[in-house]
């Protein structure tokens, strides 16, 4: 069974440019998460989807970040415009549902460098 697939693996852009990340979760997983992981830190939740509905986006910087999960499967995370401080690894994860004890499965992440 394929795991969570993310693309691209690496992205280098100049500040003020837009960038988008794509995630394909494990088949059948209703819940999808986007995290940001800064160097030497643990992942921090940006947004959580239940099917196509964003149920927790309290940590998403909405002035420049946006996300969508059309049809409740694949998801994209966009930054426009990017800032130097956005350099990080962006991780996507999925789980069967958001019950309290559900295990999250992570993709390999997209490493973003903003120059």
């Amino acid at each position, binding site marked *: 069974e394929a795991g*969570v697939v993310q693309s691209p693996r690496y992205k280098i852009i100049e500040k003020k440019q837009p960038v988008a990340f794509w995630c394909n979760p494990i088949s059948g997983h209703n*819940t999808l998460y986007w995290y940001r992981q800064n160097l*030497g*830190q*643990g*992942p*921090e*939740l940006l947004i*959580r989807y239940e099917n196509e509905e964003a149920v*927790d986006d309290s940590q998403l910087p909405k002035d420049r970040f946006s996300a969508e999960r059309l049809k409740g499967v694949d998801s994209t995370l966009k930054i426009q415009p990017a800032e130097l401080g956005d350099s990080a690894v962006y*991780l996507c*994860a999925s*789980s069967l549902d*958001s*019950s*309290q*004890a*559900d*295990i*999250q*499965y*992570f*993709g*390999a*992440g997209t490493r973003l460098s903003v120059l």
Partner: protein
Amino acid sequence: SQKIEQNSEALNIQEGKTATLTCNYTNYSPAYLQWYRQDPGRGPVFLLLIRENEKEKRKERLKVTFDTTLKQSLFHITASQPADSATYLCALSTGANNLFFGTGTRLTVIP
């Protein structure tokens, strides 16, 4: 403020010894706690989950304890091997599967 602290940024141990990693938290009331392993360039991989009403969980060479009075979890790897070298993350959930991660401990097992 809420904090999740993992005892040290890096831990080196000799092969065959038991590695013990610590996760302390403040101002959380977790329903359960998870431990994940992360290798360089990869996403975290789930290892173990322990609920607030459980004291200990085991899986092969791994053991996790959870003390809600001390607000602490200990993660043990017995008979450690060089292949166990990785960063280990603890993560708390207070409900609805919102995971709050610690900063991680980078374990190196020396042959």
